[in-house]
């Protein structure tokens, strides 16, 4: 109830119209002398998945952290459902975050909570309108969705890396988000588990019509799940388009990146 009440008019408008859910405008970010993001701009509408690719240390994860509001940009803006995550009030940022699901690179599960408690964490804090049994049912439904039914009482340390990612994904979906952010969803996983995660993301995309950004090194994964690919180098997006557009590109860096991975 609270999550619904907190939804701003802007969010409702975006959900009903075809406005971009995520707008990144000329974002720059430096750490000391090193500029990791240099004028990054793009937009994502509902139903779209943008894969952000690039070499290590090119600021891909920093971009996600700026989108969630965990770090402010030096300049530019990240607008999520109309909320500027760097300048909005705490209440507006919280309301925007309730519309976002974020899968961290290493899942970032709460190690003192069980799998079910991890998935139910956002519900416990934001859906006080649900009874205990309704919350449990929702957790069971989410675990079923990511293929982890029956693992409710396990601790995060007792499950594999792939399963942890699935739990993280279930937690990210708990509040029925409009925006889904995935940081290296297949990193550190074997090809079969990576494939399963890709299929899961595709299925969730289809069912929930999310606006998603996937940060990855994995070109195969990007090709499978993304509607658009943004390739970053030295803090800038060097090319943005479909996988076919990237394949047709004459840029040396682009062809190096694609052909090394495929």
């Amino acid at each position: 109830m609270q999550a619904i009440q907190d939804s701003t008019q802007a969010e409702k408008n975006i959900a009903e119209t075809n406005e971009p859910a995520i707008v990144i405008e000329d974002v720059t970010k430096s750490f000391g002398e090193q500029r990791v993001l240099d004028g990054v701009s793009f937009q994502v509408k509902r139903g779209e998945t943008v894969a952000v690719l690039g070499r290590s240390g090119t600021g891909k994860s920093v971009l996600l952290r700026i989108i969630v509001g965990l770090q402010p940009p030096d300049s530019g803006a990240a607008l999520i459902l109309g909320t500027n995550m760097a300048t909005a009030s705490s209440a507006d940022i919280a309301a925007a975050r309730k519309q976002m699901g974020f899968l961290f690179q290493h899942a970032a599960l709460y190690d003192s909570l069980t799998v079910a408690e991890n998935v139910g964490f956002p519900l416990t804090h934001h859906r006080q309108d649900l009874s205990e049994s309704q919350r449990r049912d929702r957790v069971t439904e989410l675990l079923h969705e990511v293929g982890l039914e029956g693992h409710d009482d396990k601790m995060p340390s007792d499950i594999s890396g792939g399963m942890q990612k699935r739990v993280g994904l279930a937690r990210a979906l708990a509040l029925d988000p409009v925006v889904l952010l995935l940081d290296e969803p297949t990193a550190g996983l074997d090809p079969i588990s990576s494939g399963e995660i890709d299929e899961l993301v595709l299925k969730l995309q289809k069912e929930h019509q999310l606006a998603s950004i996937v940060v990855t090194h994995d070109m195969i994964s990007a090709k499978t799940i993304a509607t658009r690919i943004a390739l970053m180098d030295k803090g800038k997006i060097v090319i943005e388009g479909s996988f076919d557009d990237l394949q047709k590109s004459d840029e040396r860096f682009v062809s190096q990146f694609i052909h090394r991975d495929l």
Partner: protein
Amino acid sequence: MSTTPAVAEPIRIRFNPIVAMLEWFGELGIFVWQVLRAMVTPPFQVAEFVRQLDEIGAKSIPLVALAGSAIGVVLALEARYSLVRFGAKALLPSAIVFSVVTEMSPIVTGLVVSGRVGAGIGAELAAMKVTEQIDAIEASAVDPRKLLAATRILACIVALPLLTLAASFCGVLMGWVASTLVEPISLQRFIETGFRGAGFKDFLPPTFKTCVYGMIIGTVACFQGMRAKGGAEGVGSSATTSVVLSSLFVILADVILVKVILLLFP
């Protein structure tokens, strides 16, 4: 008057520890303000507070009781020796009761809890920080300062006086046991003699000054934990600095609070 970069750099390096210390206090001030704001803003994390009260308070009782008992025994043995020398043996129960309740028990409880709880909170929050669990809480639109820091700090503030009472009880009891083993005295007489002429003003301020110790331990440990950087080394460093700094500040606070109590309750 501006300082040129060529001059500013050596000055900065020379005064680096001072700058770092001032930065630390500045960041601590901001953290305290954010936690205070989180504490008074609904929704309140009652379940987590109760869990922390159990973790910080109930689970510290055995250690605090043992420390309190040791103080009682040591004081009984040491004070007897001194008082007998000066022909004031009859004052032994009062010496034990006053020493235990007004000073020894609060400061020992503060230091024992800063060791056990300070290290625990510092390491736990640091581990959560370096594994992005705190970021995950924030990304879930839950304020980690409210959920993790405010609950722990409040639990420390509430638990410390209660633990001090437990330490005082064990200290007085074991003081009597140690005294009666050397020279038999009934517990009733020991208590009557020990508390003769004493009022609440003698015991309440020293007990409740431990609320300040609790605030210091909780705040320093949460702050150090939540600003941890790096991997295992960062976690270890946060745990160590939590204990060292909270113990140091508890001792400094004791010096100030003793003076304040003497001024307010002469």
